[in-house]
C-alpha cells in the first residue's frame, strides 16, 4: 500500500488568522460568515430567552415594560438582519454555488470578502446600540415613534442596518454575475441545481430591494436629526409612507429568508428520495415568480394603518397570488416522494420538518392576508406564530438540514447520525411546543409586544416558554457535536449520500480551486440513473 500523503485542501492549505481574514476563497468566506451569524444567533437567542422567561407569568415581574420593549426589538433586529437574511445565502450559498456550477470561485472574490467585513461593521454599530442602552422601536421602526418619541439608540441601530444592507447587496450581485458567467461547460440553465435557481431569485431581491430599506433608514435618520418632514404630519410628512417604504423591502426580505431555504429543501428531497425533483422547471420558475410577486404584496402589512381600503383590496388579492408559487413547490416536493426510495437520515428529517412547518406558516399567512380576518388577528400572537413558523420552522430547519447534508463536504468529516437525529427531533418538538400555542393565544386576542397579560392566557404561555427551553437544547446540541465531529467524526468520502451535483464530484473537503480540472457537464440535474 502506498503511504497516505496528507492531501492538501482548502482547510489545511494555510493556517493562522491572517490566512482566514485575508482569504478570497468563497469556501472560507462562507465559514467566516458561519462564525459571525452563529454568534449573532446566540445573541438574539439570549434576548428571546429573557422574553420567554418574562412571559412565563402574567405579571410583568422580571423586567420593566421599557426593558421588555428593548428585548423584543433587539431580538428581532439581531435575528432578522444579522442571522436569517445572511444565514443560507452567505454561508451555504457562498460555499456551494461555485462548487455546484463547476467554477473555481465566485465572480468577484475580493468583493465577497469585503461583504463579510461590511456585514461585521454593521453588526458592530448595532451591538454598540445594544450594549449602550438598546433600542425599543420594534424591528419595524415605525414612525412617528422612531423619529420623534423614542429616546433610545435608534440612530446607531439604523446605521448598523444601513451598512449591513450593502453586504447583502454585494452578495446578491456576486451571485448573479457568478451564475451568469461562471458555469462550467455544458452546465446550462436547466441543468443547474434548484439550489442555484433559488439563490438567483434571492439575489434579484437583494439587489432590487435592499437599496430601498437603506434609503428609508436614511430618511428616518434625517427626520430624527434635522427634522425634515418626510414622515411627521406636523412637518408635512406622512407616517404611513414609512410603512410603505419599509415593507417594500421587508416583505420581499421575508423571501430572502425563505427562498434559499427552499433551495436547500429541493436538494435534500432529491438526494434522499433518489429522484429528480418532480416538475423541475416549475420549481425553478416558481422561485423567480416568488421573487417578482413578492414585491407586489407589501400592503398586507398596512391593512389597519389607515391605508385606503381599495389599496388593501389590491394587496390582499396579490398576496393570495404569491401563495401559488409557494404551494407549487410544496406540492412538487411531495410528489417527488411518490415512489422514491426515501431514506430518513438527519437532513431529510429537517426537510420534512420544513415542508410541514412552512405549509402551516404559509397557510396562516393567507388568514392574515384576508382583510376582514386580519383586523381581528393583526398585532396579536397569531402574527408572531405565523412568521415564526416560516422563519424558524422553515428557514432554520432548512439551514440546519443543509448544514448537516453538506457538513461532510465542508469539514471532511461525518457528523454523528444518532445524536443528529435526536437533535432534529428535539428541534421539531421544541419548535411546535413553543409556537403552536401562540396561534391559539393570538386567536383568543393576546396582543404582541406586551410584557404582562391576563391570567387566563398563562397555561398556553407556560407551554410556549417550556417549548423554548427544549428548542434551545435542540440548537445547542448540533453546535456541540458538529464542532466535536471536526476532530473526531469519521472521515467523509467525496460523496457520502451518494447524491448528484458537482459539489459531490470533488474531494471532501475540496481543494482551494474546487476541482482538479474544470468538469464538463453532459447530464441533467438530479440524474440518479446510471450513477449507481
Amino acid at each position, binding site marked *: 500500500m502506498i503511504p497516505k500523503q496528507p492531501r492538501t485542501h482548502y482547510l489545511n492549505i494555510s493556517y493562522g488568522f491572517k490566512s482566514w481574514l485575508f482569504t478570497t476563497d468563497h469556501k472560507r468566506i462562507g465559514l467566516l460568515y458561519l462564525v459571525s451569524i452563529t454568534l449573532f444567533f446566540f445573541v438574539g437567542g439570549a434576548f428571546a430567552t429573557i422574553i420567554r422567561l418574562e412571559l412565563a407569568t402574567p405579571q410583568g415581574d422580571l423586567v420593566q415594560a421599557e426593558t421588555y420593549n428593548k428585548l423584543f426589538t433587539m431580538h428581532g433586529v439581531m435575528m432578522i438582519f444579522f442571522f436569517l437574511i445572511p444565514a443560507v445565502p452567505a454561508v451555504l450559498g457562498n460555499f456551494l454555488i461555485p462548487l455546484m456550477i463547476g467554477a473555481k470561485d465566485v465572480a468577484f472574490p475580493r468583493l465577497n470578502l469585503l461583504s463579510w467585513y461590511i456585514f461585521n461593521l454593521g453588526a458592530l454599530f448595532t451591538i454598540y446600540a445594544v450594549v449602550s442602552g438598546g433600542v425599543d422601536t420594534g424591528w419595524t421602526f415605525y414612525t412617528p415613534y422612531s423619529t420623534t418619541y423614542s429616546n433610545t439608540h435608534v440612530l446607531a441601530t439604523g446605521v448598523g442596518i444601513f451598512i449591513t444592507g450593502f453586504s447583502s447587496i454585494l452578495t446578491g450581485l456576486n451571485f448573479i454575475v457568478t451564475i451568469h458567467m461562471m458555469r462550467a461547460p455544458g452546465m446550462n440553465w436547466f441543468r443547474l441545481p434548484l439550489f442555484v435557481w433559488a439563490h438567483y431569485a434571492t439575489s434579484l431581491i437583494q439587489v*432590487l430591494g435592499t437599496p430601498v430599506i437603506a434609503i428609508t433608514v436614511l430618511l428616518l435618520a434625517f427626520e430624527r436629526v434635522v427634522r425634515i418632514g418626510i414622515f411627521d404630519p406636523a412637518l408635512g410628512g406622512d407616517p404611513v409612507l414609512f410603512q410603505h417604504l419599509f415593507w417594500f423591502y421587508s416583505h420581499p426580505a421575508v423571501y430572502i429568508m425563505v427562498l434559499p431555504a427552499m433551495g436547500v429543501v429541493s436538494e435534500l428531497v432529491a438526494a434522499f428520495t433518489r429522484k429528480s425533483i418532480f416538475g423541475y422547471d416549475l420549481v425553478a420558475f416558481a422561485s423567480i415568480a416568488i421573487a417578482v410577486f413578492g*414585491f*407586489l404584496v407589501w400592503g398586507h402589512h*398596512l391593512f389597519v394603518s389607515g*391605508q*385606503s381600503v*381599495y*389599496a388593501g383590496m389590491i394587496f390582499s388579492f396579490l398576496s393570495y397570488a404569491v401563495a401559488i408559487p409557494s404551494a407549487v413547490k410544496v406540492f412538487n416536493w411531495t410528489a417527488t416522494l411518490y415512489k422514491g426510495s426515501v431514506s430518513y437520515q438527519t437532513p431529510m428529517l429537517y426537510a420534512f420538518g420544513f415542508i410541514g412547518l412552512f405549509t402551516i406558516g404559509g397557510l396562516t399567512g393567507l388568514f392574515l392576508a384576508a382583510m376582514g380576518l386580519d383586523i381581528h388577528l393583526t398585532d396579536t400572537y397569531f402574527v408572531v406564530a405565523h412568521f415564526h413558523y416560516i422563519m424558524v420552522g422553515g428557514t432554520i430547519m432548512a439551514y440546519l438540514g443543509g448544514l448537516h447534508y453538506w457538513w461532510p463536504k465542508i469539514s471532511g468529516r461525518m457528523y454523528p447520525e444518532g445524536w443528529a437525529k435526536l437533535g432534529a427531533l428535539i428541534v421539531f418538538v421544541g419548535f411546535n411546543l413553543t409556537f403552536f400555542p401562540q396561534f391559539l393565544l393570538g386567536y383568543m386576542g393576546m396582543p404582541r409586544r406586551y410584557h404582562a397579560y391576563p391570567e387566563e392566557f398563562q397555561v398556553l404561555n407556560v407551554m410556549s416558554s417550556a417549548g423554548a427551553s427544549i428548542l434551545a437544547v435542540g440548537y445547542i446540541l448540533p453546535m456541540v457535536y458538529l464542532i466535536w465531529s471536526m476532530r473526531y467524526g469519521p472521515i467523509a468520502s467525496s460523496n457520502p449520500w451518494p447524491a448528484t451535483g458537482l459539489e459531490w464530484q470533488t474531494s471532501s473537503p475540496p481543494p482551494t480551486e474546487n476541482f482538479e480540472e474544470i468538469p464538463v457537464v453532459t447530464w441533467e440535474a438530479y440524474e440518479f440513473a446510471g450513477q449507481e
Partner: protein
Amino acid sequence: MYFAIFFALIALTAVTVTISFFDLGRLNAVVALTIAVFKATLVILYFMHLRYSSRLTQVVVAAGVGWLFIMIALTLSDYLTRSWL
C-alpha cells in the same frame, strides 16, 4: 450629438420655466414631471451611454426603473384612493 442633446435639454428647461408662468390647474405637476422624465431619459440614454451599452446593462437599468415604477404605482394606489370612501 452631445451638443444636440445638450441644446434639447436647455430647450426643455426653457419650456418648463415658461409653462410655470401659466396655471394649468391639476396639470401643473403632470406637465412638469413629464418634461422632467423626458429629460432624464435623454441623459440616461445618451450622456450615460445606455443606448450604446450591452443588453445586460440595459436590462439592469430597465429593471431598476421598473421596480421604481412598482413602488410608486402601488404606493399611489393607497394615496390616490384614500378619499374615495
